[in-house]
């Protein structure tokens, strides 16, 4: 009864960071650990107020390394847990994102991207961390990363990020940018009991039979938590299905690393979401994500008004990369246009999937994103 009224529902005018925070609450997140950083601070501020109202925990750690470690600890204690940061903090989190991958701790990391490298441009938008999202921690691994294009999606995709992280026991990243985080838009939130939630699988065997890293058919192992009597061990070392370190065995290493990757890659079709706009007859297709996709949408509409068959493939999922969607549209299109607020990151993946189809890259650095007219001009030039 109380839960119904304590979670936000209905139509609201919100900023993106607040929508993200409310999305976390709606998803059942009851633990947030973070460290102040522009432009993600409002997520922490909002949750420091909201978490206690819901009986949840907000803690400000001494840095982003500790924040990420605390999130894994809370996740292993049975709570849905999250942190939020921007580039400099995201760099510090990479170490323990690797630990979350290795120990299969469900958790959500929000990176509100600003301009880098280093301290860079704290108050400006960027998309410079999208490769870091995939490759930032050492070793071979797969994560899931989503890119919101609106304040509504800051809410919706935060919920989805939690669901995916719980379903696949993998850190899931919300790769936002300064604009979607700081802009104000209308957000419609369904009643709490109408929001689909996923919870991690629990073991259905007694403790003496439980093997913490023995996967089911979907390659995801059921998860016991601390204090439930299972007496399990988890480690960042290469480990067998019992969770015990076995660091010299090539067989154990390849079985583990391949499974950690395959549980995402073999389920990619279920995970990946893209939005296709006017693609049926399109011969020029803009492939975009995040705030840039909004300008791209406007750009292709302007092109259509001028009789140009332009379309938009918006990547909602960045990782695992939607290869099949790009390959499919590349077969039909004469050219693909990839606008990004970086020096060319996801465009490399697009080129790889597009094979022979020419790919035009539009870079923006250190300023507002591409304008619809700039997208339109690129569409015109590439025909």
């Amino acid at each position: 009864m109380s839960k119904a009224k304590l979670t936000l529902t209905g139509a609201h005018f919100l900023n993106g960071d607040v929508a993200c925070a409310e999305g976390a609450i709606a998803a059942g997140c009851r633990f947030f650990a973070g460290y102040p950083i522009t432009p993600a601070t409002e997520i922490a501020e909002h949750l420091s107020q909201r978490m206690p109202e819901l009986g949840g925990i907000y803690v400000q750690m001494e840095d982003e390394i500790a924040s990420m470690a605390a999130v894994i600890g809370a996740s292993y204690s049975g709570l849905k847990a999250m942190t939020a940061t921007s580039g400099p903090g995201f760099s510090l989190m990479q170490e323990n994102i690797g630990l979350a991958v290795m120990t299969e701790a469900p958790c959500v990391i929000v990176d509100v991207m600003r301009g880098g490298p280093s301290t860079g441009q704290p108050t400006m938008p960027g998309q410079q961390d999208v490769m870091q999202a995939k490759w930032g921690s050492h070793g071979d691994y797969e994560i899931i990363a989503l890119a919101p294009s609106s304040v509504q999606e800051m809410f919706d995709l935060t919920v989805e990020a939690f669901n995916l992280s719980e379903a696949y026991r993998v850190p899931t990243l919300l790769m936002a940018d300064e604009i979607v985080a700081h802009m104000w838009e209308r957000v419609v939130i369904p009643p709490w009991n109408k929001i689909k939630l996923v919870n991690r699988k629990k073991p259905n065997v007694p403790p003496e039979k439980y093997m913490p890293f023995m996967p089911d058919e979907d390659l995801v192992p059921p998860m016991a938590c601390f204090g439930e009597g299972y007496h399990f061990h988890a480690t960042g070392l290469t480990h067998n299905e019992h969770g015990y370190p076995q660091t010299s065995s090539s067989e154990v290493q390849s079985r583990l690393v391949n499974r950690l990757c395959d549980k995402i890659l073999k389920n990619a079709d279920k995970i990946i979401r893209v939005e296709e706009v006017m693609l049926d007859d399109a011969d020029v297709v803009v492939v975009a994500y995040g705030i840039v996709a909004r300008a791209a949408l406007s750009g292709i509409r302007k092109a259509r008004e001028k009789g140009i068959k332009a379309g938009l493939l918006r990547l909602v999922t960045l990782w695992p990369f939607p290869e099949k969607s790009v390959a499919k549209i590349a077969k039909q299109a004469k050219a693909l246009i990839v606008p990004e607020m970086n020096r060319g990151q996801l465009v490399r993946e697009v080129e790889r999937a597009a094979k022979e189809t020419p790919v035009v890259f539009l870079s923006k650095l250190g300023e507002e994103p591409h304008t619809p007219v700039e997208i339109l001009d690129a569409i015109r030039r590439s025909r």
Partner: protein
Amino acid sequence: MVQEMAHPFSKYLRAEMMPHIWCPGCGNGVVLNCFVHALDELQLDLDKLVVVSGIGCIGRTAGYTNADSFHTTHGRALAFASGVKLANPELEIVVISGDGDLFAIGGNHFIHAARRNIGIKVLCANNLNYGMTGGQQGPTTPLESITTTSPYGNIEHPFNLVHLAAASGATYVARWTALHVRRLTQSIKKMLLKKGFCFVEVLTPCPEIYGRYNRMRSGLEMMEWFKRASVVESFTDPSKAEISPDRIPVGEFVDLEKLSYERMLHEKISKINEKAIEGVG
């Protein structure tokens, strides 16, 4: 007829993880032994115990203990453990780690966990160097000690861990050596019964690595140093408890009561949560 006898403490250990990785003469076995004795004497509920460690020789203790256990990244045991304790304050969290892990790479987490007075119990095996990587100089290596990275003698002043823990806000601070098994066990029991952040340092012999470069080639020689130099100086000024070749001040240095972070947090959450529920009626 031969009867198979289980070791009286076998329920506390994971037999499948044995043999352990520790060298002959190492003091880590003593630390684990005293820890297990403390658990047994207190009859602690193993279902509610979580042992967390970082990286290093003593870091393997988490895997050897038959409770829920987690082996974190280097230096991050306390940050991870903070998440556990806040998420489920009913759990007893013991961090067992080394001097390099807790005070070099993890130093920031240590001072902040102590400052918050979060109810985590830290058992630190101080072997004066980085043993697992082959004996490099670390934050507790004595001045002029020879290590593989201070071949001309260490010129960095070591931490006085007792002073550091006390100054950072720990509610219980003790130091013993691997020679002081009874008093060490008593201190571990004491910290397990306390509510706030607690710290017990154990000076451990590392003859294979540290000792071989510093004229103490056997575990016995290192133990003899501990015996010769240890002086019980309980509740004296922690700032004076510096370790030197001639003097190892041991004892209990801090024992005070202070509301724990998790208690303050959860009391606040309960109040705010109740008020929020009333507010929406």
